């Protein structure tokens, strides 16, 4: 866990030049295993805040606590070696091979050669780069995306619990950026690293952030789950920053389980008369059928039940689902699927096939305009769209 406590930085104090308050009393807490994204326009103090954490910049006032320990009491160099750091320009050392670059921190920590060798290979495997082929190369012999990956695993080499990243994926083209972000996200969740990442890309923040810290003029304006920021921007500045299409952006963050309605399901033994009556009452054209343990079996259409003996059980008219939705799939994926199959609804099923409700155009619109947001929902495990395809 890392805690910033009224952290401030004023530049230009010593020489009596014009003073700039780059960071103004920022307080926030990032829990273990979370990704926190610092977001905001250029010059708002994101980098300065980040660098005060590993003391590349000394705070003018305020404290940084890592697992409760005040970093100002630690040796600066020891502190930096215990934290991972990825700079915006990647900053691989051109005079060292990829292997030497990766093990810079382990070497500073005095690991033995065999352990460093093994660690380098392990990390390369994690980003799907063939060790034999790349370890003995020099940075300039790698593509931009490959260099970026090396920059990230170099920061991870000594297995630091906390990773500081300053626009780590800024230098990669948009297509590769997506891939590297997904890869990074998987790695972060697997290794359970706490990450603080600077970005000025709202989409990156939505994709990776468990928490987003919105900065303006050195002040922390809002600190929330990305969906809460999109759904409830605190002021006009943030509303403008998240963009006019912020509701559409939420599609990535909201899951089927959140937006499902509480449609009823009926048993296979239900009679046609009862089923028709229920459809009439709810103004529906279909009903989901489930068994006693709420296991979804299929559905019946109203048009199939017309002019049928009212006492027949609906079992005979059961149709199989064409497509379904998983609980953790995001709305963007679901909408795409609904258009693909030209259907207006999807049954939402849990991992065992249990019926949770239906996602329809109306239920989606209802959720997005309801004022609820993922960050405010009772704490569930943390999801991100990066987990899905």
């Amino acid at each position, binding site marked *: 866990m890392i805690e910033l406590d009224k952290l401030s930085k004023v530049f230009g104090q010593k020489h009596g030049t014009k003073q700039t308050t780059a960071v103004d009393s920022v307080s926030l807490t990032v829990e273990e295993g979370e990704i926190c994204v610092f977001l905001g326009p250029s010059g708002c103090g994101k980098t300065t805040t980040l660098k005060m954490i590993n003391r590349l910049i000394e705070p003018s006032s305020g404290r940084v606590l890592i697992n409760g320990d005040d970093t100002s009491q630690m040796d600066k160099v*020891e502190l930096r*070696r215990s934290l991972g*750091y990825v*700079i915006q*320009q990647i900053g691989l050392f051109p*005079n060292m091979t990829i292997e030497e670059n990766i093990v810079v*921190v382990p070497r*500073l920590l005095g690991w033995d050669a065999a352990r460093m060798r093994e660690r380098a290979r392990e990390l390369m495997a994690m980003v799907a780069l063939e060790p034999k082929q790349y370890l003995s190369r020099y940075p300039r012999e790698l593509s931009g995306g490959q260099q970026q990956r090396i920059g990230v695993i170099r920061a991870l080499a000594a297995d630091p619990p906390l990773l500081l990243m300053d626009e780590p994926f800024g230098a990669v083209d948009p297509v590769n950026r997506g891939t590297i972000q997904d890869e990074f996200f998987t790695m972060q969740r697997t290794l359970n690293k706490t990450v603080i990442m600077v970005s000025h890309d709202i989409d990156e923040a939505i994709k990776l952030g468990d928490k987003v810290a919105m900065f303006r003029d050195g002040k922390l304006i809002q600190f929330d789950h990305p969906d809460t920021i999109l759904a409830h921007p605190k002021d006009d500045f943030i509303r403008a920053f998240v963009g006019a299409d912020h509701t559409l952006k939420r599609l990535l963050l909201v899951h089927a389980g959140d937006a499902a309605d509480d449609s009823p399901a009926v048993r296979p033994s239900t009679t046609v008369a009862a089923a028709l009556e229920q459809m009439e009452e709810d103004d529906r054209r279909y009903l989901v059928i489930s068994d006693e343990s709420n296991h979804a079996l299929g559905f019946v259409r109203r048009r199939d039940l017309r002019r049928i003996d009212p006492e027949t059980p609906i079992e005979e008219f059961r149709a199989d689902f064409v497509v379904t939705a998983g609980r953790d799939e995001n709305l963007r994926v679901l909408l795409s699927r609904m258009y693909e199959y030209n259907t207006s609804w999807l049954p939402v099923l849990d991992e065992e096939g249990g019926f949770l409700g239906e996602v329809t155009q109306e239920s989606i619109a209802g959720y997005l305009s309801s004022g609820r947001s993922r960050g405010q929902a009772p704490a569930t495990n943390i999801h991100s769209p990066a987990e899905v395809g």
Partner: protein
Amino acid sequence: MTPPTLRRVLGGLLGIAVVALLILWIGPSTIARFRADLLYYTGQHLLLVACSMVAALITGLGAGIALSRPSVSKSAERFMQIFNVANTVPPMAVLAIALAFFGIGGTSAVFALWLAALLPIVRNTYQGLAGVDGALKEAARGLGMRPLQSLWQVELPNAWPVIMGGVRIALVINVGSAPLSFLIGANSLGNLIFPGIYLNDPSQMLLGAVATALLALVLDGLAAWLTLRLSRHQAPSERAVV
């Protein structure tokens, strides 16, 4: 044969041809006549160069590194301007000054040659280090290198080609200026050149001059090779400044 090998072979052949032509021009008899002198004075010449270059490397690299440290970055430019102005003082004037301080002999010569070689080394060391990408220095610091570790592992290796450029300029200036030390009573290939002029013996003078030039070329080639060897990571195009 790959093109680089071909080039090397051609270069070698050209070199041999030039040397053969020079020997013809000077005349094999002259060389035979001055054989002992040539060997002796080449040795003396090299001794002057070695002493003054070692001193210049130690002080020059040291000063360049010191000037590039962040703590003196404000005054570094002013220091460099002084160095640059000093650099325009001609070697003859430096010799005269050295003479005034150390009198006749080898010490004056080494001092003058040291001063002449010092400036390009300091300048290039400073500029090479100052020119290292700030991102690299930040990465080094951020990953937890101490200042000396950053200097040794990151800054110097990346400034190496520029520094070596200065060392090579210094070396050529040094080898080329060393004959002048004859004038203040130190031994060098100047001991062939100047008597050659005074005694109106062009072949003797030529022998000394050509030997000096060849020495400069060979030492420069050596330095170029060293630069290449110690900067494997540079792209071939960046290295082609031989």
